[in-house]
């Protein structure tokens, strides 16, 4: 299952943007098999597209599959650091894996660029100068959804998420911004595929809306079963559950659902338009939220490589912190805890030329930073 991609062959085709001459080794640990494979695949594809476009001979990427298992992720990280001698790690999808891997990576003086997982435990007191999150802090999209629920007039929400760190962050984020009551709150098993018991409780709860965070296959199962249950109250979710790669498997059941995201393919900026076209050309499918995060992560890395040598850790860190790259989500900057300050939008699932996709409805929160930054003493 080892996939080793060497990109050092393109030396002759060096472009002007290649910058400084030291080779940077990147270790990508992501989920490429099992129930979460579609997320990791999208992150990898987005990341590799940016690497390919940059055509920089000084970057080498090693990709490994963590199978969504924390122990395997830890082993891979150790091996990449000790025998492959990587300088930078990236790729982890799931917060429980990130919590197992990131602290030891940063403690060994390596950089970790998160293209997805942003657990609150790494954003506050335990923030680290070598840890950068290019996606969001976990709470963010859920906070935006809580805010949206207020605007939509939902006063009594039933909320559920898987029982793992990102699930806890999700419910906390939604409750932080939602001013209405909570009709019920459930923590489900990670990887659960049957939600009959939860749906029965939603039906009995008398709630006026449902908020759920169930990434990957869990969300597909939930939305299909929700549509079949006869429950008619509206559902709201973060963008993950209504992501481009999921929608085809969900079909009509997702139509019209409002969800929150920091990115969508119709965001009006030049970098995004170029990204969407290039992604479709390369992979023959529309990019997802996760792909956009992988793409931004690679571009952040490339921007730092153009400014500083990896051997000069402090200069390289400063270059990363400057975030001097064209993000596909428009404006992008890091807060003090190295998590993004960004706009978050409300999207709606629509059918466009026979393809299920999202379109942006409105801005949910502008220039949003997470609240954990205040506890970070960096």
């Amino acid at each position, binding site marked *: 299952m080892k996939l080793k991609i060497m990109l050092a062959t393109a030396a002759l085709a060096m472009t002007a943007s290649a910058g400084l001459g030291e080779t940077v080794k990147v270790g990508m640990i992501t989920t490429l098999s099992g129930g979460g494979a579609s997320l990791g695949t999208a992150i990898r594809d987005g990341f590799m597209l940016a690497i390919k476009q940059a055509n920089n001979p000084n970057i080498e990427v090693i990709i490994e599959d963590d199978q969504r298992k924390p122990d395997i992720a830890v082993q891979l990280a150790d091996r990449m650091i000790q025998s492959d001698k990587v300088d930078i790690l990236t790729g982890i999808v799931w917060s429980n894996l990130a919590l197992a891997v990131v602290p030891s990576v940063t403690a060994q003086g390596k950089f970790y660029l998160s293209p997805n997982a942003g657990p609150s435990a790494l954003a506050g007191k335990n923030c680290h100068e070598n840890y950068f999150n290019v996606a969001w802090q976990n709470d963010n999209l859920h906070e935006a959804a809580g805010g949206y629920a207020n605007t939509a007039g939902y006063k009594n929400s039933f909320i559920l998420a898987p029982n793992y760190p990102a699930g806890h962050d999700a419910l906390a984020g939604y409750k932080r911004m939602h001013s209405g009551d909570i009709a019920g709150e*459930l923590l489900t098993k990670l990887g659960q595929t049957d939600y009959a018991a939860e749906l029965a409780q939603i039906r009995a709860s008398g709630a006026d809306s449902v908020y759920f965070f169930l990434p990957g296959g869990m969300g597909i199962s939930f939305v299909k*079963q929700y549509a079949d249950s006869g429950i008619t109250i509206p559902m709201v979710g973060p963008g993950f559950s209504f992501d481009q790669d999921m929608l085809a498997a969900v079909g009509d059941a997702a139509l019209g659902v409002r969800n929150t995201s920091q990115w969508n393919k119709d965001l009006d900026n030049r970098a995004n338009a170029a990204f969407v076209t290039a992604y479709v050309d390369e992979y023959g499918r529309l990019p997802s939220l996760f792909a956009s995060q992988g793409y931004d992560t690679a571009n952040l890395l490339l921007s730092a490589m153009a400014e500083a040598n990896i051997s000069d850790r402090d200069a390289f860190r400063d270059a990363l912190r400057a975030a001097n790259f064209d993000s596909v989500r428009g404006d992008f900057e890091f807060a003090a805890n190295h998590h993004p300050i960004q706009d978050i939008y409300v999207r709606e699932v629509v059918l466009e030329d026979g393809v299920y996709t999202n379109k942006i409805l409105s801005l949910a929160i502008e220039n949003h930073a997470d609240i954990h930054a205040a506890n970070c003493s960096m």
Partner: protein
Amino acid sequence: MSLVLFIEQVLNGFQFGIMLFLTAAGLTLVFGVMGLINLAHGSLFMIGAFAAASIAGWTGSFVLAIMASLAAAAAAGALVEVAVIRKLYDRDHLDQVLATFALILILSEGTRWIFGSFPLYLNIPSYLSGPISLPGGIQYPLYRLTIIIAGLFIALCLRQLILKTRIGMQIRAGESDREMIAVLGVNISWLYTLLFALGAALAGVAGGLVGALQSVQVGMGEPILILAFVVIVIGGIGSVKGALVASILVGLTDRLGSILMPEAFKLFLPPADATLMGSALSSMLIYILMAAVLVWKPTGLYGVRV
């Protein structure tokens, strides 16, 4: 908690149990008759779901899709038995576990190679979708009710097959004394292939039926495999009746536990903590049930062998 919610959860428990039974029945027969631990049983479940999703995509017919899931899983089962499993009957359990674990990897990656990493679309047909009203004001999804009825029907067919037919007689004979029925002139290798394909077909049908409710993706069989093993251990290895009783028991424990445990903790804990504790404990409940049954009856509810 209202009575309606309770009854709905009981129905959910039954439906979950029936699905588990379809997966566990094949596993317990194969284990009981051939003495084989087949970890790749979950992959046959996955093959059923993928076959159903493909055929539903091409033809649009759900009935054809379910028939395809049965046929594809049975064919895959027969192929696997002839190519790999047949060589493992005389080996010890460790070799069987290793070989069938390798089969999981091969079948998963093979499926990914053909269908890709992204989940497939398979939905409930329109004539089975939506809820129906049951007496007492209960709204219950028609599809889940159909699964309960279809599963019970399959269980009945299986019972008739095992108790009333010649093949069933040979299966039962094989269960009690493998060497003896070979000596009596029964073509044991043919019987084994047939039995393995039958178990695979049941798992495949379960995969097809569940696929319409869930996400059809690589790796969907592994979680159900663990539960199927719990079921056959509780029910007693080799006993189809035990598998049925244990499946329903596990289904009810899981579904009722997931609502009763958090409620119980709410009596003496703040709601947020109660949810956390209750969720954690309810996911352990079926394993606690298994441990309790094994203390009470070490060979399982209907098991005879030690």
